[in-house]
């Protein structure tokens, strides 16, 4: 892989820019501008802006991807008028929402009504700063990056509940209650499935987990954990078989009933950001991240940005699976949802943890891999 990372590119850019300006100004002010602290600070900002732009762009393309896929599942074509094959449709929608007036119900809580969606989208964006994209393309070495990502990921019910409660609308509140119940119920099997991965890989760092999959991807030995993780992730993302919190047939629009304009766009954006994070986590934990199986010729991985390409390809395929589920399955009832969550998912997740532990103990893991483990 190439040595350049996003941060190093940003740092070099800021170094050159500030160096040129500092030399032009001269004197102590110019020297201060050229100092390492200032350059690093600006580089971090530029890095964050690039990351923000990349994740936003990806999310909007993801919405387009879902619309096109859903169209094919329903025997029609999705958006197709704005831009090539409708690629710019969601940008147009976003612009429209941006121009719209944001109304607040008179009795709604002033702070919570605006704090909820903002915090929701901000925390969803924060996760992108943690997830490694390719080898070297991560923002710092965090030994517990998986835990941090999941911790931020599980902020969501709080903010959803805050915005639902402060909307002062019974449908919003019911949607918020359902959302909280559902997310808490499915947080447990989600984390237990992750524990199975952690047991096998022996690390909480996402980079290390991907590195540990260099011989065999974890979906082989941990197929049970994968199933539990994907199902729990569907519930966490509130996608269609588990989209009770915004069941538009019963609750008008669920917890975002009272939101319109840009605040609604925030919710929409955050939903798809979380869907993106969910797909990325599946790829990182079970599908080998940016690596390819060793029998793939090295020409496929030797060109620059190949890692990111394969990573994004896998992510979009996993998201395609979510869309497939959305196109196939009807919405479940609340009692079914909670029963499946507590009675089925958690035992299965525990079973997968035991299986992972047994597999590690017996050291029979290489049986499932493509190549024997080098350690033996």
């Amino acid at each position, binding site marked *: 892989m190439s040595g350049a990372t996003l941060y190093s590119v940003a740092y070099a850019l800021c170094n050159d820019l500030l160096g040129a300006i500092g030399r032009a100004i001269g004197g102590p002010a110019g020297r201060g501008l050229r100092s390492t602290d200032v350059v690093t600070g600006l580089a971090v900002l530029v890095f964050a802006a690039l990351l923000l732009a990349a994740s936003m762009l990806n999310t909007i393309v993801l919405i387009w991807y879902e619309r096109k896929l859903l169209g*094919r*599942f329903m025997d029609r074509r999705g958006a197709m008028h704005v831009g090539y094959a409708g690629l710019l449709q969601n940008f147009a929608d976003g612009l429209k929402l941006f121009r719209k007036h944001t109304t607040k119900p008179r009795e709604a809580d002033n702070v919570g009504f605006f704090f909820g969606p903002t915090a929701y989208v901000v925390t969803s964006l924060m996760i992108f700063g943690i997830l490694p994209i390719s080898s070297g393309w991560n923002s710092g070495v965090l030994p517990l990056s998986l835990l941090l990502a999941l911790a931020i990921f599980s902020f969501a019910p709080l903010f959803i509940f805050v915005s639902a409660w402060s909307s002062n609308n019974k449908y919003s509140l019911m949607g918020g209650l359902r959302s909280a119940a559902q997310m808490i119920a499915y947080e447990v099997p989600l984390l237990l499935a992750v524990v199975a991965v952690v047991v096998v890989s022996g690390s909480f760092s996402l980079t290390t987990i991907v590195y540990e999959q260099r011989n065999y991807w974890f979906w082989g030995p941990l197929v049970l954990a994968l199933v539990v993780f994907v199902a729990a992730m569907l519930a966490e993302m509130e996608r269609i078989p588990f989209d009770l919190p915004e069941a538009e047939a019963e609750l008008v629009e669920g917890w975002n009933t009272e939101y319109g304009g840009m605040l609604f766009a925030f919710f929409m954006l955050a939903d798809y950001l979380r869907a993106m994070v969910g797909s990325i986590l599946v790829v990182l934990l079970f599908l080998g991240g940016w690596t390819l199986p060793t029998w793939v010729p090295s020409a496929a991985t030797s060109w620059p940005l190949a890692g990111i390409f394969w990573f994004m390809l896998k992510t979009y395929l996993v998201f395609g699976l979510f869309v*497939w589920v959305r196109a*196939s399955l009807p919405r479940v009832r609340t009692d079914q949802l909670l*029963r499946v969550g507590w009675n089925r998912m958690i035992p299965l997740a525990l079973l997968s943890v035991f299986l992972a532990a047994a597999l590690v103990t017996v050291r029979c893991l290489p049986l499932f891999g493509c190549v024997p483990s080098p350690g033996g």
Partner: protein
Amino acid sequence: MSDDDPGAAASAEATPDENPILYVARPMTTAARQFVKSLVRPSTIVYPYERLEDPRFRDRVAVQAGKPIGVGHVWDNYRGVHALNIATCISCNLCAFSCPDLCIEMVTVPGTDPKHPKKCPEIDYGKCSYCGFCSDACPEGCLTMTTRYELSTPKRKEMVYSPERLYDVFRSKLPMNPIRLELPENEDRILLDPPLCIGCNACARDCPTECITMLDVPKPEAKPGTKLPKRIWKEPVVNDSDCVRCGTCISVCPKECLFWGSRP
């Protein structure tokens, strides 16, 4: 399986032999099959760019009794925009008379003799209900309905089709409703009440089909003491086979001596 919710238990018992995995697997295979099928080409026809009349949708031609009965999904007897053949229109007013929506108005066609203007139907599609009575009533088969269905326009004024526009539709040679060449058996005849007639020639002048001829009648001898009525000694004779029963003669008769009836 213990359930606190009776509703859930009932629905679970409704299909006890179902494998719960099938609940997920079966719809997903169905969706996948649909996805693969529509990857090549979804059923949706992207309407403004392609339409059912295109030759490539020939295979979707509706078939009835073994033979195709229309192009695409537009049937041959579809009632769309009218086509008007101005050349054969006899200005009989029957279309406007039969219109239940009063959307047909007989207007003067520009470019005709100003002394004897030719009047042809002008149709307001904002009011038209596409019932087809007008083309049924047209005795000459010059007003028919075509398969054209694209009428949307930003201006209400443009919904009114002048005779020239209807003639343009006629010249585009769209598939038209079968023109009814044989008039149905009509027992109605134009009858004359001879004592009232003054032989003024108004009926023969205004008859669109020129089926009325004024024939001489013998001038009777005046009885002593009485005077003969002052009139022209002619009477209209109607050629029933040419008459289209438009009733123009009845409406123009100054003495109301013409009426509908059946000839013995």
